[in-house]
């Protein structure tokens, strides 16, 4: 599912996880003069657990933060890591620390390697630099300190210490920060990050006593907190001992609870953050002649509040391209609304400012809203912070329109741009009255859906064809639309993708609808061609379909961790629904349906699968609906979840065949002939009886007797039909009549 959750970052989070963030020159000129905040490496080396089989062990992670009376801070961080595997050698040979060059400076104070034979080696001057991460769509102030350590081998201990210093205040009169107690190291070749076990993790904040510092609760992480005062200074120390390695796995919950972390701030009031953001944005709600003209144009055509909101959304979609261009602006301050319209591009806060400006001028109350997107998870928001990475428009309920969260930046989400990337995430509505964090609504599992309609409708010799149509909603709509818009060799890619529904078939036609229309759902339709699937004529044709043909394409249930390997809570978030309607058509009237197996119904804590089949004229229609429920599966329940998932994947398929049937063939021929003479009706009656269509047999038998009252065979047929319709006395009478007319029974 993670593939579906990618969301472009708009705001660059500035201070989150800032222990990985520093600033300034690559390698401080006074490297040798830096004050070491950790014990000697030799002493630290004694804490190595020689029996440990872990790839790496962080011996000490220590950070000292000093806040002055102007609420500017500088911090020193020290990390020592014992390298115990070749994989760790690769990962820890190069260290990267990101920071925002607009607000802070960074300096590497020292970096050493103690080789397995006890020699110390220090970083070389040419092995460190400050660089901007490659990100073609963004022009911003994020940079990274990058340095390579010499002679890192299995058995080495690396240590480094860096210092970062605030150079500007982001929020005047306030100080915010958040800390991770693990060291998050990028894996080599961009393969994610790792957080190894740590023997001691310590954070110490020193600040004037006059400053009130509030922090999140760390008891649940087994992190101790100690407060002390000395003179006019206060000191708070948090210490965690023997913290286990964090194994990141797929489908983890959005909440950050899997890793010990801490947020510290000088205020407990979200209103302080809202006020700051409001005063940052409000000055940019300015208009000019072009913007005024746009407002006037919208007023002419959009008369209701609903029409006005849609018109604003459309105007921004049509006129403003999403581009992040904010070098030297610190990440939170937008351009003027008029400037955004004039430039024809802007990032999320630019577009939001323009949208809010337009809406307000059109008489619609609207505010910007700061969002923590899904990609950043859901942090503990009990203590305020400035860790938002996106901005959208909040439109409160008013004048006949319901509350709405509008995101104009998306090119892949239907109006109003409410995507899975923001669903259920924390939001701070930017106005002077905001007192608390809001949570964006979540969509029901039924609103994230993929619907397949497949109709086998053409038979040609030994080949068959089926038309298909895929409808999407929610995350599937966004994801598939995005893939369609951005994939290279789109047609080939999608033919292969859709072809997974039936591996044995070729996708011979493929059409997408509404790919660039954010007002109508994106759909895909086309045809499958099946080769050599039917012997033709009197041969049977076999059909099969399983719900796994949808889950294989639209879910990722086959690659679950085995229970013994699962280390994290498993989250299905959001829940989703996969539906199908498959029409299996008889190749001709001579073939009779034979349903061999039917799909099962399943209902448990994780899945709800409803399936049914219905015989219609000359075809059999299977409908399936699988709801994968929104769920958080704890480790104690994971084995059950794993088993239930396997049961789902192994549940019965629909298998059916249309087999040539002499009776069916004769019946079809006779019905097709339209003959209504007594002989034909008698034959039809007997064929219906052989086919088990007793009610029909009664009708035709009655017609036969009516057509030929003196026909003994007609009465015989009626006697049979009546008997099988439980009209036993009537049946007896008909047989007697038949015999009286000369039928030899």
């Amino acid at each position, binding site marked *: 599912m993670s593939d579906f959750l990618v969301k472009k970052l708009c705001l660059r989070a500035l201070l989150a996880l800032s222990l990985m963030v520093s600033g300034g020159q690559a390698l401080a000129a006074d490297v040798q003069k830096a004050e070491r905040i950790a014990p000697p490496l030799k002493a630290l080396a004694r804490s190595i657990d020689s029996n440990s089989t872990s790839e790496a062990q962080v011996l000490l992670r220590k950070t000292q933060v000093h806040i002055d009376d102007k609420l500017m801070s500088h911090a020193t961080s020290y990390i020592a890591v014992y390298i115990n595997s070749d994989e760790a050698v690769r990962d820890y040979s190069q260290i990267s620390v990101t920071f925002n060059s607009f607000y802070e400076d960074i300096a590497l104070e020292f970096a050493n390697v103690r080789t397995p034979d006890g020699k110390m080696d220090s970083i070389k001057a040419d092995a460190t630099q400050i660089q901007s991460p490659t990100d073609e769509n963004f022009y911003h102030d994020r940079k990274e300190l990058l340095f390579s350590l010499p002679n890192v081998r299995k058995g080495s201990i690396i240590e480094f210490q860096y210092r970062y210093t605030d150079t500007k205040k982001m929020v005047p009169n306030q100080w915010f920060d958040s800390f991770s107690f693990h060291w998050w190291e990028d894996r080599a070749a961009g393969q994610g990050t790792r957080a190894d076990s740590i023997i001691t993790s310590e954070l110490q904040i020193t600040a004037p006593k006059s400053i009130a510092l509030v922090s999140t609760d760390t008891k649940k992480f087994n992190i101790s907190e100690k407060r002390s005062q000395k003179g006019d200074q206060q000191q708070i120390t948090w210490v965690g001992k023997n913290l286990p390695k964090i194994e990141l796995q797929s489908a983890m919950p959005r909440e950050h609870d899997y890793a010990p972390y801490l947020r510290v701030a000088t205020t407990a009031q979200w209103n302080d953050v809202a006020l700051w953001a409001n005063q940052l944005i409000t000055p940019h709600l300015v208009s000019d002649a072009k913007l005024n003209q746009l407002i006037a144009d919208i007023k002419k055509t959009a008369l209701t509040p609903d029409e006005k909101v849609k018109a604003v959304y459309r105007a921004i979609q049509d006129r403003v391209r999403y581009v992040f261009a904010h070098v030297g602006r610190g990440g939170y301050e937008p351009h003027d609304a008029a400037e955004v319209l004039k430039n024809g591009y802007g990032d999320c806060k630019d577009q939001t400012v323009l949208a809010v400006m337009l809406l307000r001028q059109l008489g619609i109350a609207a505010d910007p809203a700061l969002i923590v997107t899904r990609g950043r998870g859901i942090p503990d928001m009990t203590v305020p912070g400035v860790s938002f990475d996106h901005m959208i428009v909040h439109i409160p309920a008013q004048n006949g329109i319901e509350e709405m969260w509008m995101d104009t930046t998306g090119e892949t989400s239907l109006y109003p741009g409410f995507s899975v990337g923001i669903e259920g995430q924390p939001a701070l509505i930017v106005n002077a009255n905001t007192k608390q964090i809001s949570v964006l609504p979540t969509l029901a599992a039924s609103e994230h859906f993929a619907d397949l309609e497949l109709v086998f409708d053409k038979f040609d010799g030994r080949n068959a064809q089926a038309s298909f149509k895929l409808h999407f909603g929610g995350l599937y709509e966004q994801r598939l639309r995005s893939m369609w818009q951005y994939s290279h060799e789109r047609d080939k890619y999608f033919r292969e993708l859709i072809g997974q529904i039936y591996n044995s078939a070729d996708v011979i036609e493929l059409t997408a609808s509404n790919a660039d229309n954010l007002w109508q759902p994106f759909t895909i339709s086309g045809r499958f061609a099946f080769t050599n699937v039917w012997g033709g004529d009197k041969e049977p044709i076999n059909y099969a379909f399983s719900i796994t043909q949808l889950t294989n394409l639209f879910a990722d249930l086959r690659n679950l961790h085995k229970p013994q390997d699962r280390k994290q809570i498993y989250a299905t978030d959001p829940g989703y629904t996969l539906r199908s309607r498959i029409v299996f058509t008889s190749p001709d009237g001579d073939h009779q349906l034979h349903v061999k197996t039917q799909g099962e119904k399943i209902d448990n804590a994780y899945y709800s699968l409803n399936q049914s089949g219905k015989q219609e004229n000359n075809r059999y229609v299977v409908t399936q609906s699988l709801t994968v429920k929104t769920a958080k599966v704890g480790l104690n329940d994971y084995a059950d979840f794993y088993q239930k998932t396997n049961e789902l994947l192994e549940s019965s398929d629909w298998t059916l065949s249309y087999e040539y049937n002499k009776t069916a063939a004769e019946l079809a021929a006779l019905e097709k002939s339209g003959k209504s003479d007594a002989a034909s009706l008698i034959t039809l009656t007997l064929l219906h*009886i052989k086919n088990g269509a007793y009610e029909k047999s009664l009708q035709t038998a009655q017609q036969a007797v009516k057509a030929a009252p003196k026909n003994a065979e007609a009465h015989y047929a009626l006697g049979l039909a009546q008997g099988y319709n439980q009209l036993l006395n009537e049946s007896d009478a008909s047989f007697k009549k038949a015999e009286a007319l000369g039928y030899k029974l």
Partner: protein
Amino acid sequence: MYLHQRVAQNFSKHVPRLALTAGLSLMLAMTSGCSQQLRTDTSATQFDASAATEIAELEAQSQQDPNNAELLYKLSLAYIVDAEKTKSTASRDAGIKNLHKVLKQVPGNTATLKLLYNLYYEDVAAGKDKAFTKAADIFNQLPAKTRSQVNAPSLGVFLNRYLAQQKSGEKNLPELYQLLLNAINEQPDSDKAYIQLAKMYREENYFPLALATLKLGEEQITSSKGLYEAIANTYEARAQANGCSYEKSSYLSDAIHYYQQAVPLAPKDASIHFALSRLYLDQNLFQLALHESSILIELDPSAENIAFNAQNYSVIGNEQKAHTLLEQAKEKGLPGSDSAYHEIYMNSGDWMKAAVSFTEYLQAKKNISVYDIIKADIISQQADMDFLASIPEKELTFNSDWEMAVYAYWTDKMTRAQFEQQVKNRCERTEYFFYSGYRDYRAGKIPAAKANFSAALEQNTYRFIERPLARHFLHGLDSQ
């Protein structure tokens, strides 16, 4: 005093068995088919007594080699054998679960599907929830040939409902009819449901519908001994349902025709030859009847069958052969209470022996019929021996109005004219003439007696005991 009444008693081990064939054997097939199959399939595995150890070992091997379908199949069988022995639901469930695993690895494996189906069929017959759906799912996956070797899922439901109705006493025949029609639909090439449905129609006297049902089956299934037998049996029952099968001899011919078709399909089935012998005799084709009874004895030389053959000879007047065969039957262990003894002795005028064997016959009976009373009278009169001492202990039962009329006439509560008015068919007419003739004979009205005995013979009710008795008395009068 029908001979065929007596034959019916004598051959109750045959006739009722035929009548029950569709019912009882179907029940047996439906209940035991599975376990027979299980026994057959599992016998090859040769598990020792330590099922638990065997299962544990197979489980361990299977965990080591989880993709080994053969191993999983063995494990399934081990669980099922254990479940059979211990009645353990857990073992049975484990067996089923492992069979499903086998099918995942070897989709469509016939042996696995069949085994699994039989287990689910048991559940269907036991009325377990959702069992029908599961059974139907597997049934539909069976190859057509294998499908014809098992019972249709709806037959399991029929069995369950049939037994439930029997137990509760609440009869709902339409429900049972419909279940059998469903079974026919599921398995049109199996004769079981046709036969059972026809049997039920027949029991309700819907003979034409029963025959039409069986003939529909005959169109679908060629060469079914069961169907041919059932059709023949239905024709016989239909002939008899009219009161006197001799008046519906075309039905008897039809019955013969279908029994003949069953013979090559089951050449060693003695019961078909028994039926044919009986029917040929009814048609006065006594050479053919004797031939069939000789085949019957060849195939199944039981005391009862030899006695039946003896009675056939007695009926056609070959007393010597009849006595010889009766002795053979006696040597084979024919009980002294068997009616063959006194009837053959009566036919040949050996009244003292008839009296002795009839005494034994009476003593073995709980209830007596009017014909037993008449026999008692005739034998006691002919042998000068009183049976009254044993008769009062028995309860007299009547099976029809005609029997009551016979009793009334015999005990002088009805005049001959009144008795004659009760006659409705040739069978009753045979009795009327014989009993009137015997009355005349006892009264010394010889011409009238001779006329009545002759009239009894002229009814051509060939298997009536009145016929050889009439011939015996007539012969006696002629020789006077």
